[in-house]
């Protein structure tokens, strides 16, 4: 092949531009004399310069950064840098896991946390790797794009003097006598026919004397560039898009409503450039939540089969609409997506204080603790007199006693619902201005009244729906009115999502064209010899092109048939190259 490329020297300007250590890189003619042959490993001619000016250094580092080897190194570094984030829980994906890790590995946690390993993908070191990679990418594709635009306007290069050393070369004599009384084919006619045929096959053609030079597959480099730009596009849209969007979460008990304003959210994560006016005003009332569980197959009893939230929505100035939200079918409303990502039981409890007044009546969401929805919740009764009351409760949808006497749930649906409460009395500390979670109760300084602790006067309160139990010491009573389902609504707004998808599609399309469309040149040449006219065919791969020889063969066959001189078998191969043997034996080498 070295001979072939030497002959082909004049026409590499139209080739895709490559980094200097790319396998297909060819030094421009002006440099070629200085940096030796193309096969000499390192092409970094700059290193040999004795002294570099400041600009020289900049150019040198830029060249290093945009080289293939640096890209390769950064890619490998990126793969390695991504690993630790999969080994320890991440704050974004699994905050509870991080909290648990902190407890389980008290020694290790601060060290890992110093490295930011619980937020791996936002750490400066991880960002540095991918940002360098993308800078390297930009440095690579900008000149290549410019070069490619020029190449798209260039004509196919001159036909090499000798085709015989090129891929798939074959030569066929043209019948000297005409077919059906027609005149014999002349060189001009043969070449014109070849040009037409090549054009139809999508080649760009140029006639040079008694030959036609054709090139195709510019789309390969286009696809390559589109792929890399689309990667950049994804990075930018993801980076920017997050800043305009927001995500929020709200627990809604069946029968209650959610209004899309800041005050309604239990938790809210705005992007950097979020403004409250972005919130589209709408209401969602959760009418009903239905969960279906496996009831037949013993091994997967209680596996959830379906979650459906029946909701009534209303947007500003519009009528109410009834619809459903399911797991793979979020609700699109007001430019947001509403997901049902969690659900559980809300316990409807009425507490009367020592003076007989209703001190508390609400549906309290209990958070699921396991697959069978054993749920944990807290009831705070600051209005109770004479003392404030606090309760930590467990709700068991299908209560069943363990051998220890403790209860557990063995099925997620409400077959045998039961509520147990540990009751505390004393100052709940709600008036000191420090915000407290509704899901936790600090029992320090509280007097246990009923519960499992030894200090408690009585055993925990156990209730079935509809039952009422008196508290000891005349502190009042607790009524378990009933149980309802709650859903955890996740509301997301991400204006960049659609652009990310567009870029993702471009990535696939760019990849397909950039990898599988062959870039190739073919030539058809008419040669007049002592034995009359003969036609020569040959091709040259520009990049990976496994089917080049077949393509040249095909071209010859069709062209010869077209000009009425069908191809003879056993084309003369001046030099059958050994690597062409498709399989098996390489003993001959």
């Amino acid at each position, binding site marked *: 092949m070295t001979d072939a490329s030497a002959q082909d020297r004049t026409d590499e300007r139209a080739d895709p531009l490559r980094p200097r250590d790319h396998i297909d890189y060819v030094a421009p003619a002006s440099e070629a004399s200085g940096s030796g042959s193309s096969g000499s490993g390192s092409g970094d001619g700059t290193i040999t310069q004795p002294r570099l000016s400041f600009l020289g250094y900049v150019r040198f580092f830029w060249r290093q950064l945009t080289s293939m080897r640096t890209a390769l190194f950064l890619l490998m570094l990126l793969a390695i840098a991504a690993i630790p984030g999969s080994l320890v829980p991440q704050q974004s994906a699994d905050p509870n896991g991080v909290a648990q890790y902190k407890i389980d590995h008290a020694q290790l946690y601060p060290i890992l946390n110093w490295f930011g390993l619980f937020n791996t993908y936002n750490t400066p070191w991880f960002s540095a790797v991918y940002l360098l990679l993308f800078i390297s990418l930009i440095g690579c594709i900008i000149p290549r794009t410019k070069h490619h635009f020029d190449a798209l306007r260039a004509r196919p290069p001159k036909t090499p003097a000798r085709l015989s050393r090129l891929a798939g070369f074959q030569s066929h004599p043209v019948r000297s006598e005409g077919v059906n009384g027609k005149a014999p084919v002349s060189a001009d006619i043969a070449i014109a026919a070849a040009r037409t045929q090549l054009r139809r096959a999508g080649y760009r053609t140029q006639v040079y004397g008694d030959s036609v030079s054709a090139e195709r597959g510019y789309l390969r480099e286009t696809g390559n560039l589109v792929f890399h730009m689309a990667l950049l596009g994804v990075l930018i849209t993801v980076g920017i898009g997050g800043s305009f969007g927001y995500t929020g979460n709200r627990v809604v008990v069946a029968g209650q409503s959610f209004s899309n304003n800041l005050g309604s959210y239990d938790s809210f994560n705005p992007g950097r450039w979020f403004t409250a006016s972005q919130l589209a005003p709408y209401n969602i009332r959760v009418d009903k939540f239905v969960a279906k569980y496996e009831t037949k*197959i013993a091994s997967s009893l209680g596996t959830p089969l379906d979650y459906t939230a029946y909701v009534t929505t209303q947007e500003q100035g519009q009528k109410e609409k009834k619809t459903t939200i399911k797991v793979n079918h979020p609700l699109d409303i007001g430019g947001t997506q509403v997901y049902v990502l969690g659900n559980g039981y809300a316990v409807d409890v009425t507490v009367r204080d020592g003076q007989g007044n209703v001190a508390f009546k609400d549906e309290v969401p209990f958070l699921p603790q396991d697959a069978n929805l054993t749920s944990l919740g807290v009831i705070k009764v600051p209005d109770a007199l004479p003392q404030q009351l606090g309760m930590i409760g467990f709700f068991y949808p299908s209560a069943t006693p363990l051998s220890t006497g403790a209860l557990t749930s063995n099925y997620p649906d409400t077959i045998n619902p039961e509520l147990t409460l540990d009751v505390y009395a004393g100052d709940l500390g709600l008036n000191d201005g420090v915000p407290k979670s509704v899901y936790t109760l600090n029992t320090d300084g509280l007097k246990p009244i009923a519960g499992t602790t030894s200090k408690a006067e009585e055993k925990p309160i156990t209730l079935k729906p509809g039952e009422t139990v008196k508290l000891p010491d005349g502190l009042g009573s607790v009524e378990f009115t009933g149980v309802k389902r709650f859903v955890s609504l996740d509301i997301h707004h991400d204006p960049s999502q659609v652009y990310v998808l567009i870029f993702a599609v471009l990535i696939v399309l760019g990849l397909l064209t950039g990898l599988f469309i062959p870039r190739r040149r073919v030539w058809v040449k008419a040669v007049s010899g002592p034995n009359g006219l003969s036609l020569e065919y040959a091709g040259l791969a520009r990049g990976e092109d496994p089917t080049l020889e077949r393509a040249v063969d095909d071209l010859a066959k069709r062209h010869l048939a077209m000009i009425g001189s069908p191809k003879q078998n056993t084309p003369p191969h001046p030099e059958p190259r050994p690597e062409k043997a498709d399989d098996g034996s390489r003993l001959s080498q």
Partner: protein
Amino acid sequence: MTSAELSTYCLYAAYSAMAIYVISFIAFALDLAKRSGDAQMAATAALKAQAVQAKARAGAVLEMAGGGSPAYGSGGGVAVLERTDVPSLEAPRKSSKFERIGMSMMALGLVVHIVSVVFRGLAAGRVPWANMFEFGLTGTALIVAMFLVVNLFVNVKYLGAYVMGLNLILLGVAVVNFYVAVSPLVPALQSYWLVIHVFVACLGTAFFAIAAGLSAAQIVQARREMSKNAGIKLFDTLPGADRLEDLAYRIALVGFVLWTFTLIAGAVWAEKAWGRYWGWDTKEVWTFIIWVIYAGYIHARATRGWRGARSSYLSLVGFAAVMFNFSVVNLFFKGLHAYSGL
């Protein structure tokens, strides 16, 4: 037929397929032995032929020199060490009887294997790739199927023993260690994306597996070509290192495109099911890592000084990561893709 009966038939079929694959594996192993023997014989024959030639040449020289110096004669003997053409094996190697048995047993095994997959699908009433056992069952069938498909275009039958060995291990582990009774789909999996995303991931894995086999062969072949006195004569019957590398690259490319699609389809699905398209879930991380490794492999192939065995190692690392993602990440890492069913 009830679901339980169908899943029993599924297992019967899977075990039968494994039995047939064992026969195929043995046949391919014998073929490798035969290749080794043939290559050895060819090499010996070549040496002999050369020795004869050299002797004749030396004789002629001696005649001309009229009983000249013996040193000149031994100079002719040195030529014996050079490897030259062996006429008897110049034509493409004919496939051995063992290889043909191996291939036909593999095809037969695949038919039974597919029957097993279909039974599982009927038993579950859905596509049979929603837990570890089912990924394993369907994924291995795809590896065999893709190997046979690739063989329609280019002869890579010398990988038969590798494909069968890998396949037997994976299928065996799936059937013995990962087996779970048919279970319904949790709501998050109830999506047509299950059909597309997981199937394409398995398909990509199949191509990566074949590419890894070729890359491993390339590494051995390249090492042999470097050394003067190459061992493992069996590799004489395989294509040259460049050819192996070329094939590995092209097959890995197909895998890479499928993997890219898997990644994007997974993101689209995650947006529907989990409310975000990318959340650095452990499985997402590893899918991304694999993608980056193969992207690196493709770049390495185009980098001076990296073409050849160096890039082949990256292909092996990539496939190792794929296997890690399938086994360790699925079983031991906590994440949203906790569908092993174990």
